[in-house]
């Protein structure tokens, strides 16, 4: 009996849902997209090269579904402060973690391309090269999108960022505050 690569799809379901949720920020929409993507993946398995990264292949199908729906809708379906953000249970922490509610809201304010790049590279552990291939853009584009996304988040999270920095260990803190107060020359 030959090995059907499709049997591997199930292993990637949690990641696929997480990626869909990051893109749409809406649980119902995300799951509809995952459903569409699963059917596409199943029927287009011939376009998958065995031995290559299946997660990347599935993510590519999902993002193509998302962007083609967005194009059809003719506008960005922004869900800032939306369903997903609102439904999260918040656990404020004081150990250097950012307030998750604030982080989610800030994250939702990034544009789709920035959010996508940051999730692929910053959270899912894809390389810049892999992310570039998945998004069909140059490596430099992915790099600048992730950089801009990080800067924007840092800007949006400004107050919490200061808090987070205060929670870092003494040595780091000394370096940071030292740099802040050091006069030039």
């Amino acid at each position, binding site marked *: 009996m030959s090995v059907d690569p*499709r049997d591997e799809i199930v292993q990637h379901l949690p990641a696929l*849902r*997480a990626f869909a949720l990051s893109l749409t920020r809406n649980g119902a929409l995300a799951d509809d997209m995952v*459903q569409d993507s699963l059917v596409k993946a*199943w029927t287009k398995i011939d376009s998958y090269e065995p031995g290559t990264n299946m997660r990347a292949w599935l993510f590519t199908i999902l993002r193509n579904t998302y962007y083609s729906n967005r194009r059809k809708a003719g506008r960005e379906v922004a869900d800032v402060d939306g369903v997903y953000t609102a439904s999260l249970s918040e656990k404020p922490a004081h150990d*250097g973690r950012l307030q998750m509610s604030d982080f989610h809201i800030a994250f939702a304010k990034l544009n789709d391309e920035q959010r996508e790049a940051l999730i692929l590279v*910053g959270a899912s552990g894809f390389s810049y090269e892999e992310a570039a291939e998945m998004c069909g853009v140059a490596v430099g584009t992915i790099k600048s999108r992730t950089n801009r996304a990080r800067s924007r988040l840092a800007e949006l999270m400004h107050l919490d960022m200061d808090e987070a920095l205060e929670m870092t260990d003494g040595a780091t803190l000394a370096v940071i505050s030292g*740099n802040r107060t050091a006069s030039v020359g």
Partner: protein
Amino acid sequence: MAQDRNKARQSQVIDDNLKRVYQDMLEEKVPDRFLDLLSQLKGQQDKETHGDAK
């Protein structure tokens, strides 16, 4: 220099939190509808394969 270090630290904080959010999503239980869908697709395919063989 100082700015670079600050920036690196910021990126680190952002990525750490991003990973935490992502990890939470990864740990969510996959709804049965997806497992059902996959077994349904598999069932269809088995039927087709058997159909072809005969």
